[in-house]
């Protein structure tokens, strides 16, 4: 531009400054405004409120910017001689704040004293939107990363071939191996499980594929882990996706369960033994007939107990109880059973097995089973309301005579079943065959 005449040159410079595509402000070293270019004045809409002159640079900014100016920018201008790309907002007369980026430089005289501070201010509306999104994404990523970092569980990222790609601090704590030593190695070698040599490859093999894979395994060091595998699925290519592998130390729960199992087994033995001892005492203390009756009742109880232990004491299958009764009755020819499987609660199983025992004993002594050609028909039905109806009907026995005295057996059936099962109980001494019916809600 050397050929341009000097005055013309100055005009261009003046115009450039006034109408620059950025705001320009000049202050004294205390921040008092000395010059604002037209662009900045227009952005601020200063003409809209001439009665409110703005004296200082900080007064052009919204309140947070003013505080930042006092605590950061003013000291920075003096100490380092500049500020760069400060994100702040202009307080626009009658309008919303205008996001800007502000940079400044301090000018000194020959003696080194500050003479003025020059600022350029850029419209940052678009940049602000983008930054806001970026910050949001970053915060979210940071928060998730913090969760992974501070989790007591081992959280790994493993590629499709089983190589460790990420290894969190929890994994280091649990397996005593830092990330550097684990990265790139085969996960089932770094974390070996007893009896599951290739647990990763076996778990993620096609066919075993599900949204989530969960198993428990015992680590080489003896601790038990709950292992969850899930495809990360960011890449979208099946067979090539990475997996998240989360390992939770469940050794304490595992040990507690083991302990409980041992205790339960021990309890089962003790109950059986106690029943055996009680039988022995009965044989020695009672007359032969009474002892036999008592012991057979104990046996029924013991059998109910067996049926219960098959399910860890949580309940029993009615057919198992009927099988015991059938054996007592003399086999399938003597006791016919017809009906669906029915699951009983623990108390129901105990009282019903005692009742069945009494019914069989009575039938053998006085009822249908006292005759070679007699038999018992047991029908099970589930009623509409879910209750079970058990009908015991004797056929081919001697003519039935209602008892004059209700024996222990009948009393026991009536009372116990009513009390324990909340059952409706009915007896029918039909001369052609004794009938017994019980209705209750199973489970």
């Amino acid at each position: 531009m050397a050929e341009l005449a000097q005055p013309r040159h100055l005009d261009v410079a003046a115009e450039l400054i006034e109408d620059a595509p950025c705001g320009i402000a000049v202050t004294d070293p205390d921040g008092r405004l000395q010059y604002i270019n037209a662009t900045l004045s227009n952005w601020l809409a200063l003409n809209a409120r001439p009665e409110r002159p703005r004296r200082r640079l900080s007064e052009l900014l919204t309140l947070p910017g003013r505080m930042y100016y006092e605590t950061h920018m003013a000291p920075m201008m003096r100490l380092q001689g500049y500020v760069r790309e400060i994100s702040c907002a202009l307080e626009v007369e009658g309008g919303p704040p205008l996001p800007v980026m502000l940079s400044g430089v301090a000018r000194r005289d020959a003696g080194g004293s500050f003479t003025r501070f020059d600022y350029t201010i850029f419209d940052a509306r678009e940049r602000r939107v983008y930054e806001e999104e970026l910050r949001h994404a970053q915060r979210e990523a940071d928060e998730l990363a913090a969760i992974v970092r501070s989790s007591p569980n081992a959280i790994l990222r493993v590629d499709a071939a089983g190589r460790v790609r990420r290894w969190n601090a929890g994994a280091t704590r649990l397996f005593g191996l830092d990330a550097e030593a684990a990265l790139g190695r085969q996960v089932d070698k770094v974390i070996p499980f007893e009896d599951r040599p290739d647990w990763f490859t076996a778990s993620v093999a096609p066919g075993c594929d599900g949204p989530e894979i969960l198993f428990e395994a015992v680590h080489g060091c003896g601790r038990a882990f709950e292992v969850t595998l899930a495809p990360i699925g960011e890449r979208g290519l099946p067979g090539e996706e990475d997996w998240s592998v989360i390992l939770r130390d469940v050794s304490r729960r595992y040990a507690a369960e083991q302990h409980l199992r041992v205790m339960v087994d021990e309890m089962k033995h003790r109950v059986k033994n106690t029943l055996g001892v009680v039988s022995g005492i009965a044989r020695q203390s009672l007359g032969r007939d009474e002892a036999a009756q008592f012991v057979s009742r104990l046996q029924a109880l013991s059998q109910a107990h067996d049926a219960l232990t098959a399910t860890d004491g949580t309940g029993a299958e009615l057919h198992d109880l009927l099988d015991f009764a059938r054996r007592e009755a003399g086999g399938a020819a003597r006791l016919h059973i017809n009906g669906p499987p029915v699951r009983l609660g623990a108390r129901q199983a105990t009282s019903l097995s005692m009742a069945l025992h009494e019914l069989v004993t009575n039938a053998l002594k006085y009822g249908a089973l006292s005759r070679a050609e007699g038999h018992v028909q047991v029908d099970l039905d589930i009623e509409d309301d879910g209750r079970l109806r058990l009908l015991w009907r004797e056929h081919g026995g001697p003519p039935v005579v209602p008892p004059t005295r209700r024996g222990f057996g009948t009393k026991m059936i009536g009372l116990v079943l009513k009390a324990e099962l909340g059952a409706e109980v009915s007896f029918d001494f039909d001369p052609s065959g004794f009938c017994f019916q019980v209705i209750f809600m199973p489970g």
Partner: protein
Amino acid sequence: MRATERNNVTVTGASDGTPLVFVHGFGCDQTMWRQVLPAFADRHRLIVYDLTGMGKSDLSAYVPNRYADLGAHAEDLLEILDELQLGEAVLIGHSIGATIALLAANRAPHLVSRLVMVSPTPSFLEDAAQGYAGGFSRADLEGLVGFLDENHLGWSAQMAPTIAGQPAGSEATEELTQSFCRTDPAIARHFGHVTFFADRRADFESAARPSLILHCDDDALVPMPVADWMREKVPGATLRVISATGHCPHMTVPDIVSAETRDYLGSG
């Protein structure tokens, strides 16, 4: 780690002089005191340091739960006094650094002879019910904390070693560029919150040591009524209003700050 290392303590001046310990405020670090120190170097032992989390302090020591209370910074200061075995010291604090100095003096009055508080405020928050005109509403202050977040991305740019438009870079400029106002953005946000929401009026009212309060007549952060409140309520306080613009007179008018401080200390 020793407190003197954790807080990047620098000791200069006359080794046998009365110790002056300078506590910087929110925003920067010990370099804020550079222009004030020479005035005292001949007669005083000068101790400057960076608050934990700021400047070149050990950033890993900034445990947010602990430093959610300004008392933690006061404890740090007492640890420094203890390690240096200063005997009785004068504490000189700026803004929130003044509050920290006051808290330390209240906790261990035997270690502190006097306080100089530069642009202090017991609370930035308005409290209309108590007739306290702190200057800012809660919404204002929350806006500032959000603002500190926004400037998070610009942080690394502030640290860039060479900047276009800089006056020819001297070594000193280079050094400052690397260190000045270096603050981890997460810490800046946290400390900003702690600073601007701190209400320490009760501690100011029970000041255990006499103090000089320097207040700028044109301070954008601390309005005049706050200075009046302190003059009335702070036991043993001497208020001096100086004619200066802004919140950092130790940087804008260091000679006045030095002279006022010297006069005060010399007065007995």
